[in-house]
């Protein structure tokens, strides 16, 4: 207990110190800006300078602040974010901040709030799971997979078919999805792994689209009610019934809360498994394949076997995600197989820090949140406060008047409600653009991701008697790793 308090206290001190140093660095930055202001005015380049100022004001203090913070952190924890101890704490703190964000999200009533939490946390877990599958294949082994949605879609398809057409228990359907997707991943190794790596990437891109087109053409594989306008089946017939009812009556919570908790549990398990892999000699071999597979094979490892296994393990994880998706959406339509999903998973993967399971969770949080924010930009006309009213009318002018002039009818795509003077603006049309921007911003600041891959450093270092190194090695070698004496 006292150990925990000590740790918290020392972290707090560190936090305060980073704050101080950050402000110091910020002041320095402003001073510099002042001098450069004077100098620049002497040269006549006023216009270009005027253009630079806003960017400088926005970004320079921020990055100075972050740099100063990082310096102190590195002094305390060597290697900074690449230090395991620091990274695990940073991870916990980031989770806490996320919880705070989600908790503080304003909403009209508790029911709406609960369903918001159910949705957002579920999506974070789902994206984290998918990103971790990608992490094993691409981050660890270097197999560039642009076909995340193919594997996930296949898992979803299997789940939906097993439940709806096969009438199976949802748990069995989930298991089946995991196994079959793993098998598909393994089999995929045979035609593709002898290709050069960039061609492998192209194959994976195509697969997802092929699956989607096939499904669109073949109604047998769609679980939507034929002929009805509504593509969503209210519930997958029968199968969830008893369990869902008892969940409701026992906990008094909606079924989606169960799904949310289950998804978080699954994500947690996938983190654990990923860590086990990454920290084992098995994961080490995978990393060498990423770095230089010819050398790996020259050291006795069957590279093909390892790659095929990773396609299967990643496939199993994607299959799991697919099953969760069907459980959540309670339907399966080809439209679920969006290429953008692959893009978002890649975003989480890059932002989080490739090679790092915890990083995948952070990446998933950032990407999901960005998507969520983009979906619901707050409504304008929010009151009589002069400041807000001015902002609102500028916003309205830009989006409704200018946007309307440029996009014409299309502008209604992102201006969804226009009664009683309220404008709700959803920037879904710009979703990819904005997520892309977020990725670029993070890449500039965190080259290797927010939580970079940890370097391997042995926990216990052997005590070597330096005087007799040259004779020692022979003894060790002859006894094949035996005792020191």
């Amino acid at each position: 207990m006292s150990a925990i308090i000590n740790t918290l206290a020392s972290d707090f001190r560190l936090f305060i110190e980073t704050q101080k140093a950050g402000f110091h660095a910020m002041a320095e930055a402003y001073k510099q800006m002042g001098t450069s202001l004077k100098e620049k005015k002497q040269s006549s380049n006023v216009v270009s300078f005027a253009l630079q100022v806003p960017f400088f004001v926005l970004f320079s203090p921020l990055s100075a602040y972050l740099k100063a913070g990082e310096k102190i952190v590195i002094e305390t924890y060597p290697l900074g974010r690449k230090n395991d101890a620091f990274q695990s704490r940073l991870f916990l703190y980031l989770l806490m901040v996320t919880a705070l964000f989600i908790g503080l999200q304003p909403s009209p009533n508790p029911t709406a709030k609960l369903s918001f939490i159910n949705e957002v946390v579920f999506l974070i877990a789902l994206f984290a799971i998918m990103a971790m599958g990608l992490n094993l294949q691409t981050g660890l082994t270097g197999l560039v997979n642009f076909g995340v949605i193919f594997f996930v879609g296949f898992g979803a398809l299997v789940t939906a078919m097993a439940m709806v057409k096969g009438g199976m228990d949802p748990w069995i359907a989930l298991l089946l999805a995991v196994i079959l997707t793993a098998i598909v991943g393994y089999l995929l190794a045979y035609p593709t792994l002898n290709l050069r790596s960039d061609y492998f990437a192209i194959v994976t891109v195509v697969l997802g689209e092929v699956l989607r087109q096939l499904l669109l053409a073949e109604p047998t594989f769609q679980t939507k009610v034929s002929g009805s306008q509504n593509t969503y089946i209210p519930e997958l017939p029968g199968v969830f019934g008893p369990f869902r009812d008892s969940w409701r009556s026992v906990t008094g919570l909606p079924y989606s809360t169960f799904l949310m908790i289950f998804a978080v549990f699954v994500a947690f398990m996938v983190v654990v498994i990923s860590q086990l892999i990454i920290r084992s000699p098995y994961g080490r071999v995978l990393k060498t394949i990423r770095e230089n597979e010819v050398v790996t094979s020259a050291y006795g490892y069957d590279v093909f076997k390892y790659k095929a296994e990773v396609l299967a393990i990643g496939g199993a994880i994607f299959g799991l995600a697919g099953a969760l998706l069907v459980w959540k959406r309670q339907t399966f339509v080809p439209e679920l197989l969006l290429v953008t999903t692959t893009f978002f998973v890649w975003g989480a993967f890059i932002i989080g820090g490739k090679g790092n399971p915890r990083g995948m969770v952070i990446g998933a949080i950032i990407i999901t949140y960005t998507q969520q924010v983009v979906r619901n930009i707050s409504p304008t006309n929010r009151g009589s406060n002069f400041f807000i009213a001015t902002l609102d009318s500028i916003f309205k002018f830009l989006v409704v008047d200018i946007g309307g002039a440029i996009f014409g009818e299309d502008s209604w795509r992102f201006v969804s409600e226009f009664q009683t003077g309220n404008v709700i603006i959803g920037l879904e049309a710009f979703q990819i653009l904005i997520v892309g921007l977020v990725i670029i911003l993070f890449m500039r600041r965190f080259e290797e991701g927010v939580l970079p891959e940890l370097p391997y450093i042995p926990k216990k270092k052997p005590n070597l008697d330096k005087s007799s190194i040259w004779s020692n090695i022979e003894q060790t070698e002859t006894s094949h790793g035996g005792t020191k004496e």
Partner: protein
Amino acid sequence: MTDPLLKVEGLRKSFGGLQALKNVSFALNSKEVIGLIGPNGCGKSTTFNVISGIYPADSGSVKLKGEEILNKKPHEINRLGLSRTFQYTQLWRNLTVIENLLVPPKNQTGAQFVNILRRLKLAKEEEILVEKAYRTLELLEISHVAENYASELSGGQSKLVDIGRVLMSDPTILLLDEPVAGVAGPLAQKIFDQLQKLRKSLGLSIVIIEHNMEFILRKGIDRIYVMNLGEVIAEGTSDEIASMPHVIEAYLGG
């Protein structure tokens, strides 16, 4: 004498129109150190690449303890006890130096997916290997960079890590492609001496490609094969080689 440990016969290999190996034959006996020399581009590295299975051969034969290994996969050949280094050092760059040394040891329990849950056993194995790896680094005088990324090393340091890595794989046959090129003189000497010792204590057999005649003509190298234009043109002890007119013309110079 019994059969040689490694017997290479009539090896041929061409890249498109270029015949890199026309007729390469040599033999390596148990616990022998032999040298492979010749001018740039004569096919020395290609010979290694073919023997270790990196490139498929056009024809010929490579027998390891009497077993034909030509056109077997690289990992299968390695498991038979043959390890090699590459002329251009190819470390696993984004791994730490110590981690580079932990991959080569054979038969690691944890290298199979099914075993990743056997934490205790893995930890025990790892402890032994880590100690061995540190010893190897000490031997090569680079233990101070053990925890650095391999990508951070200088050229010579990388060469040394490469040697360490190949020693960690417990080979019976070692193919070394210019192992000490770029390594400072005294340390290079020590490494050559050390390889001699290892040969005795571990029963290693070694083939070395080396341009530095000082090293190659010293005592301790049992035989030298001289290559030119994809062929072995001479074979003999260092004294014999040094006095052969056609060798002097092709390689040693004036």
